[in-house]
């Protein structure tokens, strides 16, 4: 298991957003998370990547516990220094790309490996150019984010996350901010990563993509996992009424 999240609880104020959610991802697995807006998908990813703190439950990366619930029922995290070690395991691709606008594309990819991981410039640039090549945008290395299309920016964001060599990469609706004609190029690189056995969790509304690429689909609603399983089973033969209802909307 790359990551295991057990009995995750998370509230904002009085609002329970994650209610006893448990799931794990194996090495090389691609998991899609689908579900209506407000069901807690982003919150789950943000908890997994330590942008949010859980209220209860357990987060385990590579067999090492990052957070667990103590006797009093409160979630306790490892020290901030140790948490930095856990951050190395995971990457996150945002809906809004969140590239650094004042850095060139190349620097977006090399700055964190150099400043956070201590790589030399040569190493970092070699990795970065390699990744940009894979993303089909090697010619944009010297450009700045504003000069790129949304699809290109998102591919840079994926490359930036990969430059940190994470064990697992999370995607939060990576194509939702894109014009329809640009989603294909982003989905293509995610598909390519899946073929290379990159471990990934993708929150998406692109049902055909989820069905074709993922090993497992999770349907979330109201802060719980309603149904999960093989994509063919979940999409073609959903067991739960809520899943059926949700999928019906996408059939049209």
């Amino acid at each position, binding site marked *: 298991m790359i990551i295991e999240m057990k009995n995750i609880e998370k509230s904002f104020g009085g609002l329970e957003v994650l209610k006893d959610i448990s799931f794990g991802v194996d090495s090389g697995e691609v998991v899609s998370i689908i579900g209506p807006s407000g069901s807690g998908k982003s919150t789950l990813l943000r908890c997994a990547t330590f942008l949010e703190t859980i209220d209860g439950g357990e987060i385990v990366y590579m067999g090492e516990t990052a957070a667990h619930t103590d006797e009093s029922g409160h979630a306790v995290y490892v020290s901030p220094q140790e948490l930095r070690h856990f951050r190395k395991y995971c990457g996150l691709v945002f809906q809004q790309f*969140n590239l650094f*606008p004042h850095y060139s594309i190349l620097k977006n990819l090399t700055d*964190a490996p150099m400043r956070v991981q201590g790589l030399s410039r040569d190493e970092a640039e070699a990795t970065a150019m390699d990744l940009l090549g894979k993303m089909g945008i090697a010619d944009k290395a010297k450009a700045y984010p504003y000069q790129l299309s949304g699809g290109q920016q998102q591919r840079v964001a994926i490359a930036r996350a990969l430059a940190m060599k994470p064990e697992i990469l999370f995607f939060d609706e990576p194509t939702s901010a894109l014009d329809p004609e640009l989603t294909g190029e982003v989905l293509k690189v995610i598909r390519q990563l899946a073929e290379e056995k990159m471990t990934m969790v993708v929150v998406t509304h692109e049902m055909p993509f989820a069905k074709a690429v993922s090993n497992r689909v999770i349907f979330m609603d109201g802060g719980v996992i309603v149904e999960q399983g093989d994509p063919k089973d979940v999409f073609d033969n959903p067991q739960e009424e809520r899943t059926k209802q949700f999928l019906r909307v996408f059939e049209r």
Partner: protein
Amino acid sequence: MSFSTMLSTMSAGMLRTFLIFALTLIGSLPLGMIVALLRKSRFAPVRGIIKAYISVMRGTPLMLQLLCWYFGPFYLFGWNIGSWRFPAIIVGFVLNYAAYFAEIYRGGIESIPTGQYEAAEVLGYTKFQTFMRIILPQVIKIIMPSVTNEVITLVKDTSLAFTLAYQEVFSLAKQISASQTSFMPFLIAGVFYFVANYVVEIVMSRVEKSMDYYK
């Protein structure tokens, strides 16, 4: 008094004016950043004190503040303020301008989308690295036009040092004009301020251009 004598007498004042200007910027630009960060402190009393400081600095005339800094120590503690004139001017200017710069910085910092912080956090940058490498460079670009305005105002505000009878260019212009019954000193002072601000505008637009490589 000939024109050249006038000019050379006043040039000493120009130097003093420049000294106020330069020391104020050197002090208030960094201090403003500290104030802006304290303004967002986790500790409510710190935030309260900083807010009060900013509103007093912005809500009262700088001229009055200068008088308080200069005469305050005498009236409050009976101190001899003989050699306190210039330091009082600098303290008054720096604290006043730091408050204005702090508000400009705060506006700039708040305009950076949270996604920038989150992207940096996930990549493993420390809080300090995030601020210095990701946030601050973007803030500086955003606030440049407001900073330019403030710097131009400062060039003109230096004349307020005349309230403490400090012999900067404005005080000297008044004195010489009165003693020589001549309008020329005011003209010289006017040209001086204008040229100074012209230089400020050129320098600042260069700085802004140098940050034009991204949007």
